């Protein structure tokens, strides 16, 4: 009696779980762990329908910081990664978690600050100089501090400027994605470093503006990685490789280049 009841409960539980799942689930899909910058800039919304139409494969994007996305790949919870921290990416492949890495596209970082620019960053000669001016004036700077690709780049710029910002009064570690960090900077009139895509799609700017841009050091390359099926046998290798081949093909490059926001191109396919 108790056994039959238990069995019925089990069937019921399974039914509830299935009821929660969307009805259409027959089409093939892969999980792509990527960065908030690609998702929040609207790029995926533009290029993925093109890929899905061409191949019938659905790409499920989980948007995280680069460090977190690499972690998800390490655990085998994604089939492919699209991230932007070259040093960490190469380490990921070298450790055997990724089968290979390919260049996809690039954009650039921009230094965001209050329109009044109290640290006079607009007159900086290069990126380390811009960061040095912020530190020199002890102007409030909001750091992602979330091990993302943007955070890694920011730390490189402080190092190049010869500044140790962690622990300083004016240096706030948000531990948040790009959007929340920009929301904070807008709220307290602070400086921060952003990728151009997220900034272009960001609506709550208040007094914020780009105060420094265009230095080649601000180059921000994105790579795609196949999670190693030898480590995680359930990785959907064929479908994931189809995606990697497509996004690095002429068709994929065209889709990336044609994504514009307010007439501005946000991502550039890596030159061959």
């Amino acid at each position: 009696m108790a056994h039959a009841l238990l069995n019925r409960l089990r069937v019921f539980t399974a039914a509830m779980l299935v009821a929660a799942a969307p009805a259409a689930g027959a089409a093939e899909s892969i999980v792509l762990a990527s960065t908030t910058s690609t998702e929040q800039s609207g790029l995926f919304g533009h290029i993925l329908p093109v890929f899905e139409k061409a191949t019938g494969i659905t790409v499920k994007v989980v948007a995280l910081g680069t460090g977190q996305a690499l972690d998800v790949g390490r655990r085998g919870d994604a089939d492919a990664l699209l991230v932007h921290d070259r040093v960490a990416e190469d380490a990921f492949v070298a450790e055997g978690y990724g089968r290979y890495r390919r260049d996809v596209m690039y954009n650039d970082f921009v230094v965001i600050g209050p329109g009044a620019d109290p640290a006079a960053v607009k007159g900086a000669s290069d990126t380390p100089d811009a960061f040095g001016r912020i530190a020199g004036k002890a102007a409030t700077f909001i750091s992602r501090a979330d091990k993302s690709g943007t955070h890694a780049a920011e730390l490189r710029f402080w190092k190049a400027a010869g500044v140790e910002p962690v622990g300083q009064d004016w240096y706030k570690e948000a531990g948040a994605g790009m959007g929340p960090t920009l929301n904070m900077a807008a709220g307290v009139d602070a400086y921060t470093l952003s990728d151009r895509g997220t900034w272009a799609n960001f609506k709550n700017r208040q007094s914020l503006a780009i105060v420094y841009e265009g230095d080649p050091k601000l180059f921000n390359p994105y790579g795609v990685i196949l999670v190693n099926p030898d480590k995680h046998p359930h990785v959907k290798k064929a479908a994931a490789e189809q995606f990697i081949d497509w996004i690095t093909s002429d068709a994929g490059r065209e889709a990336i280049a044609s994504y514009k926001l307010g007439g501005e191109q946000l991502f550039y396919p890596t030159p061959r």
Partner: protein
Amino acid sequence: MSAFAATFTDAVSLLVTFDHRVAEIVGLSLRVSGAAVVLGALIGLPLGACLAVARFPGKSVLTVLVNGLMGLPSVVVGVVVYLFLSRSGPLGEFGLLYTPPAMVVAQTLLVVPLMAAIARQVVDDAWQRYEEELRMLRFSWWRSVTTLLHDCRHSLLVALLAGLGRAMSEVGAVMIVGGNIDRATRVMTTAIALETSKGDLALAIALGIVLIFLILALNALAFGLRHWAIRRFG
């Protein structure tokens, strides 16, 4: 103040032009949280009733534990469920991570202590009143539990509504185990979080208004049903 007002005006005008994408997100929210509440009720209500009726050593400790777990942070539940369902975790082979069933599991864990704690209180009050009678009828221990649950069914509605409110409004757990994947695991709260990150505060508030009205409507429905049932069946 004017920026604040403008955000609200934008939000209201967005509500008028809602499209099917928003309907999809609302639908998934209802399906996931609804399933979690049904499963949570099946576990939480009997658990709470047993806790009220049964006598065993450590009962007060367990009662405090269940009451305390009502305040379980959803992010912690999310991380724990993530570790279990991750491909490298003990239940990884089922491939449930980043799917709606994973979100149901996480939300069920969140609502069980809440529903059990409320059920325990409701059934305990009834048990104080009817203990003598039930003993005289020589009801078995389990029969007392089911009888009390049945007798208290109208009052236990509040446990269901509390569970539903908690499930539909939490963001921490579904964000981690669902991944906020467009057209797959995006629910109202994760959509609100995403729009906030994009600085689109008007859309975030518009979605928030929908969420609040949805929860209010479900509560009103439950309120009406309860009154109807009491009048109809006593």
